[in-house]
């Protein structure tokens, strides 16, 4: 894992001291809320429905056991005993006191963490594949590149006040587990025909009010030119992004309005200039960063045999583990979606337990997934049973990865001041309706995603089934969408028809799922059947 150098640590420590002073001045009345609000937002502190909310950055979703334990400690000491893992691979605390926020940031800084750039119109936390460094199908670990981007984008003077927020994701496999085509910039590490390393560059994807799939603006960017090309991409956006209209200010609108080819042309033109400025780090700098991500000391000669005699364990094994690049090891996914639970929430005790288990079984590493689950990336196959036992005892052993109850849900109207409707109770009711695990497994991979408003933090556009909460004359109402995907087969979900109330939406989901069961052909997932037969049969079943 990356270790802060003296510059990183000094920057973060200075920011804590600066914010402590700003909070004191706010409480003393020396600055108004209007003056203070942008300062607190730069440190991830929002005022939400019930209290201040702190969003802590988890760079590319990677955590050490010590960092995870600190997150649990913060949940217990400063919050109400839990935290919420988000679709941005971050963690949010819902009940923060302003007066304690500087102490929390100091505790985070002590374990090389912060909340900088988790809000505002800047380059946000860089996201990545949660299986990075472990997946059997990756070309190389994408995290050193994500870390390089983190360093380049942190406090970048030119990009601290962009037209709108900016999200970048990096992956290194053909299977897209990070929804790169729905990011402002998505980067896929690949080799060209000559075997050289570089990136396919997608620009202008996003969800929200105007969802867009990002077009490819460069099929192969040589790795050595990475930073200068990113700089050029951002410069063109910074210059021409629509600052006049918040709803049109994301880069997706610029790329859409001028066209991907014209945007790419402008980037090339800008890049020709930027390249002369010497922004690309020397190879030694990248190697310094990459050395932090050297693979752990895997044992060799381990068996791939696993004792499957406990049937519940076998089910978890089949659904919640993933192929590892190292023989004898597996990637284990901890579901934060117990049936009827709150997607992404974990108690302080559960967070601490996951920290312990990472130290014991996974070379001290954890990952947060954009699907709001936690990954232990490097578990010996021989340890999987003991790991599952410990998880199961703590309510963390649900075997539902990628099934219908593995629901992404934003905080919605239970916590979020921008919401139109609640998301969490809908997730809970749907999970309950499909409680029978045999039924869930029979349905197979089915990604259900719920947002409480058009901002789409719950990725409803990218759900095989998506649900969007709207306000209909003061009442919560839910629109149903089908056919989205955030994976390599990215697509945007389409609205089925008129919305439903809270119970109606659960019934409608069940009817859609039953329609799929009737119509599916061998090996088809819900989304495959939908793509083959179209909206009509689903509409008929739901609206009859």
């Amino acid at each position, binding site marked *: 894992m990356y270790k802060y150098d003296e510059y990183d640590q000094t920057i973060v420590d200075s920011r804590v001291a600066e914010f402590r002073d700003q909070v004191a001045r*706010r409480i003393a009345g020396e600055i108004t809320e209007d003056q203070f609000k942008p300062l607190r937002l730069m440190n991830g502190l929002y005022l939400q*429905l019930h*209290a*201040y909310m702190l969003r802590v950055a988890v760079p590319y979703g990677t955590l050490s056991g010590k960092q995870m334990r600190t997150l649990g400690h913060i949940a217990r000491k400063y919050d*109400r005993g839990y935290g919420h893992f988000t679709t941005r691979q971050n963690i949010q605390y819902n009940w923060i*006191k*302003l*007066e304690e926020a500087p102490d929390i940031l100091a505790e985070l800084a002590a374990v090389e963490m912060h909340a900088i750039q988790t809000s505002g119109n800047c380059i946000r936390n860089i996201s990545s594949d949660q299986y990075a460094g472990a997946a059997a199908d990756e070309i190389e670990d994408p995290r050193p590149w994500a870390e390089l981007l983190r360093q380049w984008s942190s406090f970048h003077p030119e990009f601290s006040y962009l037209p709108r927020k900016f999200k970048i994701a990096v992956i290194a496999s053909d299977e897209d587990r990070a929804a790169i085509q729905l990011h402002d910039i998505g980067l896929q590490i690949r080799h060209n025909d000559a075997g050289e390393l570089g990136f396919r560059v997608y620009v202008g994807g996003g969800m929200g009010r105007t969802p867009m799939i990002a077009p490819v603006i460069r099929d192969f960017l040589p790795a050595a030119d990475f930073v200068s090309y990113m700089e050029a991409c951002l410069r063109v956006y910074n210059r021409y992004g629509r600052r006049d209209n918040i709803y049109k200010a994301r880069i997706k609108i610029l790329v859409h309005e001028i066209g991907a080819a014209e945007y790419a042309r402008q980037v090339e033109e800008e890049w020709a200039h930027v390249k002369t400025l010497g922004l690309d780090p020397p190879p030694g700098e990248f190697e310094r960063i990459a050395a932090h991500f050297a693979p752990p000391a895997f044992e060799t000669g381990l068996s791939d045999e696993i004792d499957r005699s406990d049937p519940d364990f076998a089910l978890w094994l089949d659904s919640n583990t993933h192929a590892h690049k190292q023989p004898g090891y597996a990637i284990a996914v901890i579901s934060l979606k117990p049936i009827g639970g709150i997607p992404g929430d974990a108690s302080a005790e559960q967070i601490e337990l996951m920290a312990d288990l990472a130290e014991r079984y996974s070379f001290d590493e954890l990952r947060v997934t954009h699907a709001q689950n936690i990954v232990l990336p490097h578990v010996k196959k021989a340890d999987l049973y003991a790991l599952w036992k410990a998880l199961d005892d703590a309510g963390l052993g649900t075997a539902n990865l990628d099934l219908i109850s593995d629901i992404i849900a934003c905080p919605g109207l*239970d916590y979020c001041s921008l919401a139109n409707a609640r998301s969490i109770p809908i997730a809970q009711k749907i999970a309950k309706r499909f409680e029978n695990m045999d039924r869930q497994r029979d349905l197979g991979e089915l990604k259900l995603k719920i947002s409480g408003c058009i901002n789409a933090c719950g990725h409803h556009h990218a759900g095989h089934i998506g649900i969007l909460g709207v306000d209909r004359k*003061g009442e919560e109402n839910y629109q149903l969408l089908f056919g989205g995907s955030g994976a390599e087969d990215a697509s945007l979900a389409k609205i089925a028809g008129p919305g439903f109330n809270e119970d109606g939406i659960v019934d409608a989901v069940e009817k859609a799922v039953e329609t799929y069961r009737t119509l599916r052909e061998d090996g088809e997932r819900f989304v495959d059947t939908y793509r083959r037969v179209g909206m009509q049969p689903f509409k008929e079943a739901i609206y009859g």
Partner: protein
Amino acid sequence: MKILTGNDLETGDVVWWTGEFWSRHVEESIDVADGGDAIAAREEGARRVNAPYVIDAEQTDVGPRPLHIKDRIRAIGPTVRPDLAVRPVDAAAGNWVI
């Protein structure tokens, strides 16, 4: 009726204007009629509240109740965590929100 709400500056708690002070309990709210904005400006200036705003409410047997669900949820806490409700002893708290 109109009532006035905001968040406590230091703790972030949801608070309601009682005519004399800010309470955590919505049922202690008073009708501020047309005077809400002036009270809000004065109280915010004195740093006794953060981001205050006036909302519509109705009078009920147990006191004022916000008309919009968002403020009913603010008044009671997240509907999915009744254990964290402002009045956890009230078994009907969840129904009250909806």
